[in-house]
């Protein structure tokens, strides 16, 4: 690709960020009235919405009910106008199903499912500009907290890549499209446990440590931010309640 340097000599990326720098994140909780919990997050140009309904009774076949814990159901869809080319099938295509499955696996690790019969989590992406999985997980964490469902810890996610011997944190769409290795990491920050780790493309095993560390550090930065958002929200809610 002529003229597009993912990392300049001075260490600046395409959008002017440094290697380990995150995009600007803005988040809000409790955006929808119908849902039990909802959250909206903007990471750079990626906008993700997460909505939580539950815990409620099993819908459909009662046979699916687990006797000792809740069933977490995640659905991911992205708006047809969210990518450069119009997406013809917003639901039910392979990528959406895979994403839904990954989200479910991530949240089953974090939610204390033994305490409830069933929860349903629906996650919606409005505009995709790279780092879709990470934005979805961060939005879903806030939504689950807004719904009051008990979790082991925050789940913070970030993507990372590797260019010219440097690990880059929080990839934008341009950087993802360039085709280098991409790592998606979902972390439980307090214990440092990994909820989900996924990597695409080839990466030499010697570099894995560095990329993983970049993603983990970025996830911890995201945690600081989400924590601040939650505290702010609780403070506002308690002011309204007159405490």
């Amino acid at each position, binding site marked *: 690709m002529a003229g597009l340097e993912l990392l300049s000599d001075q260490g600046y990326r395409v959008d002017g960020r440094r290697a380990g720098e995150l995009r600007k994140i803005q988040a809000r909780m409790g955006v929808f*009235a119908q849902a039990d919990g909802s959250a909206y997050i903007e990471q750079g140009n990626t906008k993700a919405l997460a909505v939580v309904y539950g815990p409620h009774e099993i819908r459909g076949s009662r046979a699916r009910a687990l006797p000792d814990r809740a069933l977490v159901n995640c659905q991911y869809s992205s*708006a*047809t*106008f969210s990518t450069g080319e119009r997406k013809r099938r917003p*639901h039910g295509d392979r990528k959406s199903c895979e994403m839904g499955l990954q989200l479910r696996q991530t949240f089953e690790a974090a939610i204390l499912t033994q305490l409830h019969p069933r929860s349903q989590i629906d996650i919606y992406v409005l*505009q995709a500009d790279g780092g879709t999985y990470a934005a979805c997980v961060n939005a879903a964490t806030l939504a689950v907290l807004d719904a009051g469902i008990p979790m082991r810890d925050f789940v913070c996610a970030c993507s990372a890549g590797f260019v010219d011997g440097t690990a880059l944190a929080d990839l934008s769409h341009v950087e993802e499209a360039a085709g280098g290795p991409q790592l998606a990491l979902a972390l439980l920050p307090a214990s440092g446990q990994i909820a989900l780790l996924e990597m695409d493309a080839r990466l030499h095993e010697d570099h894995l440590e560095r990329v993983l560390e970049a993603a983990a550090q970025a996830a911890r930065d995201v945690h600081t931010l989400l924590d601040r958002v939650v505290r702010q929200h609780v403070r506002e809610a308690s002011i309204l309640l007159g405490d």
Partner: protein
Amino acid sequence: MAAGFKTVEPLEYYRRFLKENCRPDGRELGEFRTTTVNIGSISTADGSALVKLGNTTVICGVKAEFAAPSTDAPDKGYVVPNVDLPPLCSSRFRSGPPGEEAQVASQFIADVIENSQIIQKEDLCISPGKLVWVLYCDLICLDYDGNILDACTFALLAALKNVQLPEVTINEETALAEVNLKKKSYLNIRTHPVATSFAVFDDTLLIVDPTGEEEHLATGTLTIVMDEEGKLCCLHKPGMFPPLQS
């Protein structure tokens, strides 16, 4: 106590308010909820708008693509609306293929576009018989609290006003289209249709802009679409028993 009464006898609870000519959220019978609109926030779409009618939230994204026109209308483009009611907007919707309500809403929006002539399809023509624009208008409901048709119509109009199409010329030698992204122009919006929905209570009372609960308790609903010249574009009265006296 009021909450208990509301759960056991929702209709009676409502009638108590209607007798005083007001509604539980404090509105008059003819009053709309607070409406906010945010235009152009989605940069990947060619035009977008987010409308909030009280709690009901609808987002519309318009994407323009090339298409070959049909042989019986070689100089007409297409406007393709689609309303999506995903499970996230309300627990009454399941995931899967579009349900009845979404399909009815999609058809309603298609009728409004057709009848009110918001856009002349000839304006979407680039090269007659060869290339036309097709505008895919995707309306997604994010929060369902009644009166979805009004919100969708409003979001669609706002998004269409926000759409900027680049200039396209057909290169004579190669017969390929050349898009000039630097030169963009707005669509020519001819009319501004506005939808107003009513819910009918006890066959006599008409209330404007019903919330989700009110729609559920009403005996019927009615939607009227009019443009700024006072012309009626569309009347939607889905069933009702007994029929309304004129």
